[in-house]
């Protein structure tokens, strides 16, 4: 029955995401489940994980810069 198959697939997917979430916690990646799942799907679709990692880090760095700027401007 396709429904059952889908169900099991979904269950497996959920389990996988849980495991990966635990691993990401261990590794201190600060990635939540949602973004993690997006990343997983990106990688599954063939995106280069190195590049993706860089993207994530760049974006975070950018964010911090903006934060710092904002904090700077606000403090002023």
């Amino acid at each position, binding site marked *: 029955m396709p429904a059952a198959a889908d169900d099991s*697939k979904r269950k*497996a*997917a959920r*389990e*996988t995401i849980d*495991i*990966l979430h*635990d*691993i*990401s916690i*261990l*590794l*201190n*990646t*600060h*990635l*939540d489940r*949602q*973004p993690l799942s*997006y*990343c*997983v*799907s*990106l*990688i*599954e*679709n*063939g*995106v*280069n*994980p*190195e*590049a*993706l*990692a*860089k*993207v*994530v*880090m*760049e*974006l*975070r760095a*950018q*964010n911090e810069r*903006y934060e710092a700027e*904002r904090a700077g401007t*606000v403090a002023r």
Partner: protein
Amino acid sequence: MPSTREERVDDALQSLLERLIPPQFEDEAEALADQRWDEANELARDLIDREPEASIADDVQHAADSIKRRLLKDTRNPERAAAFGGLYSRLLAQPVLGQKWGILYFLDRVGEGENDGGRVGRVEGGRRVQGSGDGGEGGQEEVFDEAFARHGLPRVPQGLESPRQVPLRERAVPGRPKMQAQTPEVEVVGEQEPSSGKVEPSEAALLRDLPFTLQGLSSTNLAFSDKSSLTLPTSLPVPLIALLHALAEPSLLYRSLSDFVESSDGGLVGQSLRSAIGQELRSYLGLVATLEGQIRRALAQLDESLPRGGLGKAGVTLKRCVVWTREATLGLRLMSTIVESAKGKKGGELISLIHNLATSHGDTFVYVFAERLLSNITRPFYNMLRAWVYDGELEDPYTEFFVSSNPDFEDSGATSVWEHKYLLQEGMIPSIVTSDFAQRVYLIGKSLNFIRYGCHDGAWVESYSKDTSRELKYGDTANLSQSIDEAYKTVMARLIYLMETKFALAAHLSALKKYLLLGQGDFIALLMESLASNLDRPANSQYRHTLTAQLEHAIRNSNAQFDSSDVLRRLDARMLELSHGEIGWDVFTLEYRIDSPLDVIVSPWASKQYLKIFNFLWRVKRVEFALSTTWRRVQTGARGVLSAVGDKVGEDWKAARLGLAGMVHFVNQLQYYILFEVIEASWEGLQKTIASPASGTVTLDTLIEAHTAYLRSITRKGLLGGAGGVDFTAQLHELLKLMLSYRDVVDGLYSFSVAEFTRRQELAAKIENRTRAGRWGVAESEDLTMSESPLFPGPNRGTKGGADSPLPPLLLPLTTTTGAEGEKSMLDSLRQRLISLETDFKTRVNVLLGDLAYQPDVDMRFLGVVMNFNGVYAPVRRRRQQPQQQHHHHQQVARSERSAVGKEKVGEGKE
């Protein structure tokens, strides 16, 4: 709904960005937020499009390992590593994801990136990496700190000494080379130079050269000055030197190992070792190639503006290379250790060496490695094993197998093929096989060889090898032992079958027993009868053809004629070497020819033993025969002739009969003992061993042993061996000689009596005649003449008597006394001789019995008892120091008293 990959990627990316980028801040212009968003988008797109392929090999294990390593480094929370291990295994079990490595790698990088950004922890972790490896370098940590700082080195230590040569060291245990520790200590304090962070030659240049160095090729900056040393450029900071040392090690090892692989000496196993090491080196080269790819890519991304050329960001530094080649270095170190210790060894020793590493080394890496090598190395060994076990052929051009062919071997028949052609070399037995296994293999091959050459059954060997030969290889121990067992059983069974059917081993052994050990009584009796008169003559008048003719006659007229012709063909009568004065009895012997391959079992030594036993038995039989003929004559004569002369020689006859009876009894007991107790019993033992030996399978070796034991027990128990210093053989020979002389004396007495009887007969006839003629009695003169005995030819008698008498010359008296005195003296001499011989006989028997009673063997003691069943002898324990004559004298004097005491002694002895 189907969506292209692009679209999916886009969607996911958008959502991700949404998550990562905080939405519009409070006091931020919308435009700014949008701008941010666009920037982010651009960046993301850019990065993703630029690098469609990953630069690290997609190995899940590798990614997981690197994660684990990183977690392990972080010793503040050690349980993280364990937790990760559990999660990882669960992840692997999940069927869903296709790109597990990608995910893990991604997470790894993100985590790393998180930990990056100037946190001290990272540097600590980094320092710990170096510190754990390098033992006593705690004091140099500042140096390393600076080395790892991302903003260049503040100072460059100058004046390093002459280029560090990295000598090749002997290493018993793979461990960090000591040179590593020395380098940082040479650090020159002082002379600080403001540096721009650039070092000459640059790390990039070094990296470019690195792949070549790792392969052992000289390059611009790192040249190999000679076979075993690498020149490092002088103007490098100490930490870089340290790193280069670490990297120099695999290069040098690789160089020496590739030299080794190129060389070619030693045997087949050595060659296989070379090929195995060559394979490992090839995989090492693969690693180097990967490394090179990495390096090239990293160098292509070099950003000159960043400190140190931005190598850190590009992902490849010397330090990283050190880490990446670490495992390979361990492997290379191990290989060079193996190569060092393998010098001069070959064959089984080499295999044992590596097997030792495989089984008894604690380090997992070492024994996994050794296992890999072993399956390669043991291939030639197993080939040789196969050839030996299934074909019986030794294909061993470099003498590496533990069975070696004997260089002193000369092809002299089957015996030597079995015994001497092949030797088992204990030293060459590799430790992958037990010594029991090696024994079996040795036996199997030997038997196959023997079957092929000794039994000429090469056809069977061919078919056997075709049917059962199978591939043997390492690691397959159960199969291997099973096939060896099967082969063993088959080959042994075949060998025994051949022995028994084709070569009729059983028939020949029993024929040996029948003829040489006097088993076939009727044949022996006939032979003896027909040969008796012949053999009394001197040895040099014997002719072989007469002996053979008699032999044939005996065979034809006894049950021996029903034996197979093959057996009869081998039977032969022969004369031994004769020396002066011997009579035929001493030189006659029967012979049974054995040819190969049976002479493996009935070896030349065995044949000699058979002849010895035959000789002894033949003598005993002869004495028995002689005594019994005499006894027969005496008995039949007793009724007729002898009773007539009873008045004169009756006493003597009584004594003679007693003596004869005693001797006959003795000889009979002896013969019975030897033939039945000894020979038959040992024969039974032999049959039983042949049918079902103690060790389970009948092999040729067990047969040989059983047969030898059989002969030995016969010689020992049959009083032929020198058991514990007591020489029975000499005693028995003396006794036999005594008995023969006794018989001669009795014969003499008999002739004397017959002569006397004849004389009386003649006298009676004469009286008769004269009575008829009318004259009574006998005239005085005639009476006197008549009292001449025919033994003493008087002056008026011709030389009738002497030449015809069967008396041996000894007994004719030396004096030429005539008449009644001569007769009387003859009688006296006869009597005396009888008595002396009998006494002598009794004495010797006593001594013999005394010796027998103290033998450890039950059967021999039984013989002593049986011989003396009525206590007529008094066994005496002979003390070696006392001279014989004294003893005899005592014996003679005290004989009568002793006999009474002796009975009690013997009675005690019996109990």
